[in-house]
């Protein structure tokens, strides 16, 4: 089984779920073709040029830490810094993967910004990738490309999805 591809497909399905504002994202799976980036996603609509962002996807069947209820996915310092160095919105999606019914899995999202001095041994679960947060994510990416929220600036971590 290609676990990486399954995780990317699942994240892709979650990102493209219908919201009160319609379908917001369409993705391209990149995993294996480029280091650090698993998904490219662009906002659907007539906007020109296209507003887009990148995702790293990690999934686990191990569940959560006992203390702090963090998702048991790891990401190295080097990978975090490579993601943070893109001059584009970049995010980590962590998936609590349900093997028998993958569509019932739960996904979490965090912005990857700034300068990391250590890796993440587990992922905070503050931001579930649900309908409300899909809309917030779309707004944040649009604000980034319109220059009204430069949370991509390495000195600023003004994302609502901060770790």
């Amino acid at each position, binding site marked *: *089984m*290609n676990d990486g*591809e*399954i995780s990317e*497909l*699942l994240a*892709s*399905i979650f990102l*493209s*779920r*219908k919201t009160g504002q319609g*379908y917001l994202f*369409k993705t391209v799976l990149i995993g294996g073709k480029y280091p650090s980036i698993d998904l490219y996603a662009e906002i*659907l609509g007539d906007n020109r040029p296209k507003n887009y962002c990148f995702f790293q996807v990690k999934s686990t069947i191990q569940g959560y830490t006992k203390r702090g209820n963090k998702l048991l996915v790891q990401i190295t310092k080097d990978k975090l810094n490579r993601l943070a160095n893109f001059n584009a919105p970049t995010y980590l999606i962590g998936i609590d993967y349900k*093997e*028998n*019914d*993958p*569509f019932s899995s739960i996904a979490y999202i965090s912005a990857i910004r700034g300068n990391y001095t250590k890796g993440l041994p587990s992922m905070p679960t503050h931001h579930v990738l649900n309908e409300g947060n899909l809309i917030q994510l779309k707004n944040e990416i649009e604000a980034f490309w319109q220059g009204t929220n430069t949370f991509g600036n390495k000195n600023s971590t003004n994302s609502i999805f901060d770790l």
Partner: protein
Amino acid sequence: MKNNQNIQGWRADQIVKLFVLNSGVLSITENYPDIDDRLDYIGIYRENPQIKFGIVIKATKYSQSEIDRKYTSTQEDMELPVIYFFIDYDKEAGVFRLTKNRTYTGTLIPMEKEKFKFEINKYINDYYSNSQ
């Protein structure tokens, strides 16, 4: 990719790819030499890559009984056995059925991992026992 033209069809494709890969029984490819352009993908049996299935994906909001009524004919001259998936792209659920000797086998089956594995393995076992 017939389905890829709109977001609904694209989502149906992603849902089927995930479902098939997660089943562990087939791998899936769209880059297969001389693929029949009526097929969306080729499913390759993991235990024996010589065994292949065509995969056709229909994005639909029809109920199971409506699907049964509406989709009554198969492609007559398809070389491979074909798995037809009928996907509700918003519910992320659906049904499937197989063709055998170019006709449908049985009723529509809910897209559940164990049922899918069972049907694929049964199909292959039946095929080999009939050919011996």
